[in-house]
């Protein structure tokens, strides 16, 4: 695999991060707009809207993984720890919410909210770990 310096890896990541976030935001807003304005929707439209909104997320995750592979070893460790902790928190939260729903303690929970939950936990963990290791 080609070797990149930290700066190169970071630039390659950021070159794709912002376009992916832009497409994701546009897809979310576009989907919400279509849902409100269209009175009758063809059967295929919800599927296209759902997949169209999810594709940039997969794109973002791919470029995040590529960054993890290309960045320097210390940054890689920080990234992997943050991703692991965020994954554990999200899985734990999903389990708790699932059982709360099963025992009818809470109404139906929109599953897609687990995605921002994961990225929120990832961001917080990365900030806390980065501060502890680098200041």
């Amino acid at each position, binding site marked *: 695999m080609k070797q990149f310096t930290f700066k190169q890896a970071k630039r390659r990541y950021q070159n794709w991060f912002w376009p992916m976030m832009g497409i994701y935001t546009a897809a979310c807003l576009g989907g919400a707009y279509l849902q409100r304005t269209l009175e009758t929707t063809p059967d295929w439209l919800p599927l296209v809207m759902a997949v169209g909104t999810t594709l940039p997320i997969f794109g973002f995750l791919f470029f995040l993984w590529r960054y993890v592979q290309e960045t320097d070893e210390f940054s890689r460790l*920080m990234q992997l720890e943050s991703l692991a902790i965020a994954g554990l928190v999200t899985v734990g939260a999903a389990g708790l919410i699932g059982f709360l729903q099963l025992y009818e303690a809470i109404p139906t929970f929109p599953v897609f909210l687990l995605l921002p939950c994961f990225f929120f936990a990832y961001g917080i963990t990365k900030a806390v770990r980065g501060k502890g290791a680098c200041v």
Partner: protein
Amino acid sequence: MENRLRVLRAEMKWSQADLAEKLGVSRQSINAIETGKYDPSLPLAFAIARLFEQSIEAIFMPEEGVVEAAE
């Protein structure tokens, strides 16, 4: 593991960012190594040693217990 990275860097009048740039790593990596919060891999330790034209042992010193255990 203890190291003399901060001293060597100061002798060269390099900032952490300067050293990070020369090694192709992040400034945070240099900070973490200097403060003993992160031990570099062998390839990075060799790169640091080569940059300062010293042996790895002259820059990185294992803790006493580790040496005794190896003996």
